[in-house]
C-alpha cells in the first residue's frame, strides 16, 4: 500500500468514525495522528482544486485552437504547442511559485516524497534517479518552457504511486531536488516545489 493510499484509507476511517452515532463515539480526544491525517486529506483536496482550476484555465486557452490530431506534421505539432503555450501564459500573467504547490501542499508533498525514500525502496529509488541521466543546474520559472534541449529525467514509478493522481495534461518531473508540475503539450512549467526530494546521504 502506498503512503497516499494509506493516507486515503486512514482519512476514510476518520470520516467513517465521525459518522458513528453520538452515543457510540468514544468519549476522548482525537489522537494527534488522526487530526494530522484528516488535515492531510483536506490538503490533498485543496491541491486537487488548484489543479482543476489550472485545467479549466487551460481549456479556455485551447478553446480557440484547432484540435490536434494524431498523425500531424512536425510543423503542425510545433505550431499548436507554441500557440497553446502563448495562450496559457496570457491567461496566467500573474502566475507565481506556490500557486498550486501552496505552503500546506508543499509541506505535505515533501512528506509524501520522503516516505518512500526512508523505506526499503529508498536505495532503489536513489539508484534509479542516479541512473536516469539526472538533470541539474537548470534555472526554471513558472509559466516558462522546460528547456527544449534538456533531457527529461524519469520520475521513478515508486514515487509516482505515492503522489496524488494528475489529469492527463500534467505530470510530475524531477530536476535536481526540485519537483516540477509540467504541462506536457505546451511544455510549460505550471509550478515548482524546491527541496522536494530529501538530500541524499552524501549531502547532494
Amino acid at each position, binding site marked *: 500500500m502506498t503512503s497516499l493510499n494509506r493516507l486515503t484509507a486512514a482519512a476514510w476511517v476518520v470520516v467513517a468514525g465521525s459518522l458513528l452515532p453520538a452515543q457510540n463515539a468514544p468519549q476522548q480526544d482525537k489522537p494527534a495522528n488522526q487530526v494530522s491525517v484528516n488535515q492531510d486529506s483536506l490538503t490533498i483536496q485543496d491541491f486537487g482544486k488548484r489543479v482543476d482550476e489550472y485545467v479549466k484555465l487551460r481549456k479556455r486557452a485551447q478553446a480557440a485552437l484547432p484540435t*490536434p*490530431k*494524431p*498523425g*500531424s*506534421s*512536425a*510543423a503542425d*505539432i*510545433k505550431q499548436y*504547442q507554441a500557440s497553446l503555450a502563448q495562450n496559457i501564459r496570457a491567461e496566467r500573467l500573474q502566475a507565481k511559485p506556490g500557486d498550486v504547490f501552496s505552503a500546506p501542499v508543499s509541506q505535505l508533498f515533501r512528506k509524501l516524497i520522503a516516505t518512500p525514500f526512508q523505506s526499503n*525502496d529508498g536505495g*532503489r*529509488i536513489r*539508484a*534509479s534517479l542516479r*541512473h*536516469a*541521466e539526472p538533470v541539474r543546474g537548470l534555472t526554471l520559472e513558472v509559466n516558462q518552457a522546460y528547456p*527544449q*534541449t534538456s*533531457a*527529461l*529525467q*524519469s*520520475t*521513478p*514509478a*515508486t514515487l*509516482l*504511486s505515492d503522489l496524488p*493522481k494528475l489529469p492527463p495534461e500534467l*505530470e510530475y518531473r524531477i530536476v535536481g531536488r526540485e519537483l516540477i508540475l509540467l504541462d*506536457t*503539450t505546451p*511544455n510549460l512549467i505550471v509550478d515548482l516545489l524546491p527541496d522536494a526530494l530529501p538530500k541524499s546521504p552524501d549531502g547532494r
Partner: protein
Amino acid sequence: MRSRVLIPLLIFFTLAAASQDNSGLALKLPLKSKSVRFAVIGDSGTGDNAQFEVAREMDAYRQVVGFSFVIMLGDNIYGGDHPSDFVRKFEQPYKPLLDAGVKFYASLGNHDSPNESQYKLFNMGGDRYYSFKKNDVAFFVLDSTYMSPQQLTWLEDQLQKANSAWKICYFHHPLYSDAKFHGPDLDLRSVLAPLFKKYGVNVVFSGHEHVYERLKPQDGIYYFVLGNSGQLRYHNLRPSGQIQNGFDGDRGFMLVEVDGDELYFQTISRTGLTIDSGVLSRQAKPTTAEQSPK
C-alpha cells in the same frame, strides 16, 4: 542415385543463397515465408553522419530481407523538437526506408518531446504508450520516463488480454544492463519485471545505453539493449556474468525475424559487420496458477 546427389546439392545452394545473396550481405536470417520481419534502432536521432551510415546499411538489408517496419527504442530526436529537427534527424536519414513504405513505431526516450506521439511518421496514434500487432506477434510500447500508475494498469490489462503467441515489449530505459554510464533502472525493474513474468512476455528491447547488449535470460525473458543507432559510448561496457554478447565499438541496428516458435536475430554494425546473431525459442506460457495473485 541421382536424387541422392541432387537433393543435398539443392539444400546446399538454398542455404548458400540465404546466407550470402548477390548483394554480398552476410545474412543470418532464414527469410521464411509469412514470417514477421522488422528492424530495431535505438538512440538514433542525432542527425550526424553516423546515423545516415547506419540508415544506409539498414536499407541495403531491407532490399534483401524485406522488413516492413522498424521499432524505435527512444531518443528519436535529440536536441529539440523544431520541424527541422524531424527532417534532419529522422526524415532524411531514413528517406530510402520511408520511400519504400517501411513504417516506424516509436517509443519515447528521455530526450524526446512527449509531443512526438502526435507525429505522423512515428505511428503512435497520439499515445505515449500503445500496442500493435503483426500476425502472431504483439508489441507493447511503453513510456519509461514516466511510468505512471495509469500506464502500469494499462499494461497489465493489455498483457492479460493479449493472446498472441509472442509478446514483445519495448521502451527506452533498460531493466538490465552492463554499461557503465547509466546502468539498469532498478525502480523500473521492480514494477515491470513482475508483470513481464506473470503475463509471459517473451522479449524486451531497450535503448538509453549507447551500446549493444544481449543479456542472459532473466526469469526466462530475453533482454536486448540497443542504444547505438546514432549515438555511441565507445568502450563503455563492463561485462559481468549476466551478459551474453555485447558490442561498444561502433553504431549498429538489429534485424529480427519471427517464425512460428522461433525468433531469429542479427545485429549489424554501421560498416556491415555482423556483431551477433542467433535464434531464440519461444518460452512456455505461464500457467494460470502462476498468473493468479498470491
